[in-house]
């Protein structure tokens, strides 16, 4: 628990030890329950009481609608806050240590900064900036400080100097053929990318950790069956299966997230299994077993927390794959065309590439930087959280 003084071994947290039943909740779980209740209620209200075409917040006069994906996104954000950010704040000593280790890797710090920008942009952007709107009259505006031949632009918003249309601050990254602001579209795309990242990670983590720990603890034929099942999941060509499902049933972003996360947890499960097998051999597990801890308690309090660092690293390195897959599908025109993702923007600009390259370049570079940042972050987390792994690789 959070104490101002440095933690000491002789301070015993009796409330922690007296926790006997499974229903005793930590402060994190209480917070989680309290905050997710309104979300669930709002979701029920949205589902049962208001029509499909009515906006969720109409009763307070806001014209903003929430989709089922949004609810799920909010839920994963709460999970992320209560089980990742809050524990870090509760353990300042370990946080300081991790930060010190993490800080040694310069590119990773920069990457973290970039990802925070994307995160904040995706979360707050849609609340501050209104959605990009189609306006065919202002199509193909160049980005600010750049200019294009005025012949390519129907109506130049900025000044025309020597037959060159100048970009304006109104559209900092220019506009698409339909006149949508590229900058605003990228901000809205951040929301989509963050939704993909958070929701898939939550699903993958939930399934992977349960399968891994159950497999490691059950042993015997259960272990064998579960791991064979993981083998099948791993050799499944996910992208093709998604294409097949898309072809037969049609699919939106929700289906994309579901299919890709349901076929991505194989590696995580294997990882968790081998990790918990090695952790369960440790002395402290034996000690807590002798003290009469139930299997559930051992798994929940000792095995999962001790494998958490490797799981986080592994999940960080999974996210770029999802973002890339979404962009690829969107580029092929097989993605969800109702959502303003980066891939949609890239594919929209492809036909105008020769004279309006910013439509492809801006979202492409943002996508590239985000994938790069996740990779650097995963690398640095690997070093910061598992000092042994670093020692092995050097």
């Amino acid at each position, binding site marked *: 628990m959070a104490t101002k003084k440095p933690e000491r071994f002789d301070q015993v947290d009796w409330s922690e030890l007296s926790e006997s039943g499974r229903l005793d909740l930590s402060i994190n779980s209480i917070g989680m329950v309290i905050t997710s209740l309104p979300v669930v209620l709002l979701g029920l209200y949205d589902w049962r009481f208001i029509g499909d075409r009515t906006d969720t917040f109409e009763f307070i006069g806001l014209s903003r609608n929430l989709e089922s994906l949004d609810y799920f996104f909010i839920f994963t954000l709460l999970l992320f806050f209560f089980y990742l950010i809050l524990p870090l704040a509760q353990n300042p000593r370990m946080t300081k240590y991790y930060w010190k280790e993490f800080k040694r890797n310069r590119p990773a710090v920069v990457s973290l900064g970039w990802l925070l920008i994307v995160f904040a942009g995706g979360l707050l952007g849609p609340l501050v900036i209104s959605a990009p709107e189609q306006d065919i009259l202002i199509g193909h505006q160049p980005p600010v400080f750049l200019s294009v031949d005025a012949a390519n632009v129907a109506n130049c918003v900025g000044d025309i100097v020597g037959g060159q249309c100048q970009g304006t601050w109104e559209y900092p990254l220019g506009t698409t053929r339909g006149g949508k602001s590229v900058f605003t579209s990228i901000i809205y795309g951040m929301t989509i990318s963050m939704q993909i990242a958070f929701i898939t990670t939550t699903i993958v983590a939930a399934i992977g950790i349960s399968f891994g720990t159950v497999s490691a603890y059950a042993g015997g034929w259960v272990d064998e069956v579960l791991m*064979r099942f993981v*083998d*099948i999941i*791993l*050799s*499944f*060509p996910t*992208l*093709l*299966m998604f*294409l*097949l*499902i*898309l*072809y*037969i*049933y049609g699919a939106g972003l929700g289906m994309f997230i579901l299919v890709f996360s349901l076929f991505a947890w194989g590696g995580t499960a294997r990882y968790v299994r081998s990790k918990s097998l090695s952790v369960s051999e440790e002395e402290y597990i034996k000690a807590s077993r002798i003290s009469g801890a139930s299997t559930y308690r051992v798994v929940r309090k000792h095995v999962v927390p001790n494998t958490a660092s490797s799981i986080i690293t592994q999940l960080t390195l999974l996210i*770029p794959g999802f973002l*890339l*897959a979404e*962009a*690829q599908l969107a*580029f*092929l025109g*097989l993605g969800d065309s109702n959502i303003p993702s980066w891939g949609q923007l*890239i594919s929209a600009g*492809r036909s105008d*590439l*020769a004279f309006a*390259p910013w439509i*492809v*370049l801006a979202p*492409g570079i943002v*996508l*590239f930087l985000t*994938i*790069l940042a996740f*990779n*650097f972050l995963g690398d640095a987390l690997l070093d910061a959280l598992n000092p042994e792994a670093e020692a092995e*690789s*050097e």
Partner: protein
Amino acid sequence: MGLGRYITARVAWAAVVSLIIVTITFVLLAAAPNPSIREAATQAALQGGDPAAAAERERELRGLNEPLHVRYLDFLQSVYTLDWGWSQHRSQPVTEALWEGLYYTAQYSIPWTILTVILGPIVGVYSAANMYSWKDHAATGFAFFGYAIPNFFFGIILLLIFGVWLDVIPVVYDTSVPLFSLDNVIQLIIPVFVLVTGSIGATMRVSRNESAEFQNSDFMKTAKAKGVSPLRAYAYHVMRPTLVPLSTTLVGQLLALFLGSSLLVEVVFGIPGLGRLTFDALVAQDTNLVLGATLVFTFIAVVGNLVEDLVFTILDPRISYDDR
């Protein structure tokens, strides 16, 4: 368990996996309304006929009124005897269409695979030999760049630069040029380059980290002390142990990339290969061809994983078969 039994078990398992995937495909298809029936009904309605009767006739014709298990067995038999049906959209048997696609896919994927397999470990070991020098940093930067840049995006940019602005490569792939000609090489350079940059990064990183371990090992010190030339020392003493762990991840990664990227790269560069075939079939709602392409990619993935596991066990005698 001996090696022979392990191999038998592993091959049997691959067969089971392929069967499961085929079954799932069947379930997906059986659970969904068949587009061709809808089409028949629409056709009949347009021509003033009875849509319900036309749909029924089409169902009869396609054997959809048979019990499910008969259809399933029939499906399995057709899949494994390569009787994959007729492609409406290409007006040719599905297997023939897939062969034609494979011809173009092989043209760029063979050089790509060879280059990745040869260059990746070499650059990785070179990078480890010059660890923390500017050469290492340059190689690492390149690896991360190639890893992170989306292949299709990189392809578009290179096409824009070299095809449109500099005009040194053709923008649209020309199928009429002979296989072994300069024109063909020129038009395949950029696709191969894009794919190699995408796949080489992971190989390079793994071989760099793995070979770093062997740099200061006793056998390297002995080799150096005996006066073995650096080239020979690296080629014989570092490269070989590095290749063993590398081979476990390599096939899987290449396959994953092959499945995802070949589609994108073929669409971007207009190569009429397997990926493009799948994409066109999807757009044209050609069920047989979509199914055929899915099966080809699935079998490639299953066989690839099988080969990877077998190669690994044969290469590295330290692995025990008992706990696998």
